[in-house]
């Protein structure tokens, strides 16, 4: 298998949403065949062009998946499976990226605010953004404001995503923004807010940079900021 064929195979496996060999794909006939993880490991062993692998294999695959989703052929589970495959690949590639001349898209810090234990939306956003090439720092659920501010200081993320499902806990988002201002770090990070009770008006009122109704809007927003 040539290097170009290997990268094409990685692209196909991303489209199929296959992380490891035991995963089924979207189409029939993939079970047992090496998947994204095994193929990326092989590429590293062969000292393949990792930049091409990321651009043509992983990003190219995700772009195709985005098209399938828009046309209705793919649903969210298919998108997430593909994003997960890319995320796993990026974890494996991380130590090799600098040497390959690939720049990270940066860190994305994400948390469900204090008092709120809901994390499905947050996890989906994490998977999608990781699939889009960001380094995710996930602080989990019920995270106190001080801990979020401390993490911003420590990790220096480009983006901070705050999630809440309850009308009672969404107010906590405002506390996070005020604390970032007090600590003099508000301008260092773009703040994205999301979750069922939130809205663009709410985001504007508390001084967030953007409201995202779903994971796709988060991917779009971060992409626009990077452009």
């Amino acid at each position, binding site marked *: 298998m040539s290097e170009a064929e290997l990268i094409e195979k990685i692209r196909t496996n991303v489209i199929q*949403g296959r992380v490891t060999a035991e*995963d*089924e794909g*979207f189409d029939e006939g993939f079970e047992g065949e090496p998947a994204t993880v095994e193929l990326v490991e092989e590429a590293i062993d062969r000292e393949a062009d990792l930049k091409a692998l990321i651009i043509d294999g992983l990003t190219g695959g995700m772009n195709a998946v985005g098209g399938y989703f828009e046309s209705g052929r793919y*649903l*969210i*589970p*298919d998108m*997430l*499976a593909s994003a*997960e495959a890319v995320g796993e690949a990026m974890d494996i590639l991380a130590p090799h990226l600098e040497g390959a001349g690939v720049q990270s898209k940066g860190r994305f810090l994400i948390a469900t605010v204090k008092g709120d234990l809901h994390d*499905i939306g947050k*996890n*989906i956003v*994490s*998977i999608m953004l990781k699939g889009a090439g960001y380094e995710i720092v*996930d602080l989990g659920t019920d995270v106190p404001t001080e801990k979020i501010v401390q993490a911003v200081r420590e990790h220096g993320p480009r983006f901070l995503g705050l999630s809440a499902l309850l009308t009672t806990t969404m107010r906590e988002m405002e506390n996070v923004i005020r604390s970032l201002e007090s600590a003099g770090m508000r301008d260092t990070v773009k703040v994205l807010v999301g979750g069922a009770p939130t809205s663009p008006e709410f985001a504007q009122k508390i001084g967030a940079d953007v409201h995202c109704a779903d994971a796709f809007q988060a991917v779009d927003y971060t992409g626009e900021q990077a452009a």
Partner: protein
Amino acid sequence: MGEGFRQGVVVRSPFERLSGEERERLDRASRSILDEVGLQCFNDEAADVFARNGCAVTREDERSFRVKIPGAVLGEAVKRAPSRVKLGARDPRNALVLDARLPRVYFGSGSETNIWLDAHMETFRSEEDPSRRRRLAVFTERRGTVARLARAARLAEQLEHLDFFIRPVNVQDEDITEQNHDVNKFYASLANTTKHVMAGLTSLSQLDNVLRMAELIAGGKEALKDNPVVSFITCTVKSPLQMVDDATQKLIEFARREVPFVVSSSPQGGSTAPVQEAGMVAQINAEILSGIALSQMVNPGAPVVYGSVPVRSRMDNLHDMYGAPEFNRYNVDCVQMARHYGVPCYSTAGVGDSSVPGMQATLEKIFTYLPVAMSGAQYIHYAFGLLERTNVFCPVQAVLDNQHIGMVKMFLESPRVSEEDIGASLEQIRKVMASRQKLYVRFVRRGLRDGSVYAHYPFEGADGTDGVIEKALARLEELWSRPVRALPGEVKDAVFEGVPGILGRLREDAREEMIKEGNR
């Protein structure tokens, strides 16, 4: 026998209203109606058959007899009815197996409405705020024609949850007469769907012509026996308890020829039968059993189906009422009674009292689909497109009904909790709990593709608007654009040659026929 016929849905542990004791009580009541009150029989031959088989037959008046059927005679006759009836189809994979011992449920269309309701979308502007616009469905009533019947059959072919075809519109073309009515309605149906075709017979004189057509399509006399592509419905009893001349004669002839047929009765609770559950079910059961018994006296083993269509009468106009809670009670009870006698059950669900598609129609339809299917009725007719009782057939409503019946069938599928299923689920739970994100979405993919996982309502509107009818209309157009699975040329030729009375224009391509039909 796993392949070679439609699978329908087999209901595990059917829903039952009646206890064993209540069933026995209703059986005794029906027997006592037939034995003590008796039937008023307007058919001479039937009176003769009943008399020869041990019934008390006396002259009632010039035109009718009083027939009293002793319980033992009734029981013996009903026992001879087969518990399994096969209904064939042009495509044998579309055949149906009705087995009284197995609650395998099929849904189909019916029956003989006068109005065909077309729909299209128009944009309306608010008088209060002209910047606000809405797309709304506008309905147009048309009369039933042979061409529209052909279109209905073509739609039936494409609706995946429709298991059998009973014509949903009356044909009222000017060149349709009593004599050619039957051959044209059966031909328009059979030429446009490969599913089972059932209908009533307008004129007994046409029975042999219809059977000749069916033989030519099935591939001969013997082939038709193995694969009866057509079957019949006869309503022998006009409620209460009057065995009418013409429908009874049809029953006798169907039984003689051993073609599958339904003995159907449709009393109205409150007008032609007691409104109370006990009285309604005892009476309709007696009416149906009298027909089944007669068929078995004529020809033991004749393939007959227990046809129950009990409805409520509404008290503001005495019309039939299908969306009433009593309708479900009556029908579920009848399904149980049919099972009690070991005869497959033709039942009823999905008629809207509403005259247009919408909230009322959907409620009334689903309200009856669910309990009747859950009770394990083998053959549920009237389930597609019917509105305004049975006066209107609306194709776009049939598309919606197909979706909703699919959901009902999916709900009724047997549980999948085998050792293998449990093992796979535990493995999934282990994997997800070992992952960071703890999400099961990845494991939904296969089910979404093979249909074992429900995706979402396909006619959902966007941006706060109700897009159901507009989307269903688009789906309807797509279904109608699909090619017809036409009869082979030589079969078509043989039918036109061997069966008199079929209109020449039915020979033309169905699509051209549709265009010609236009908005007439």
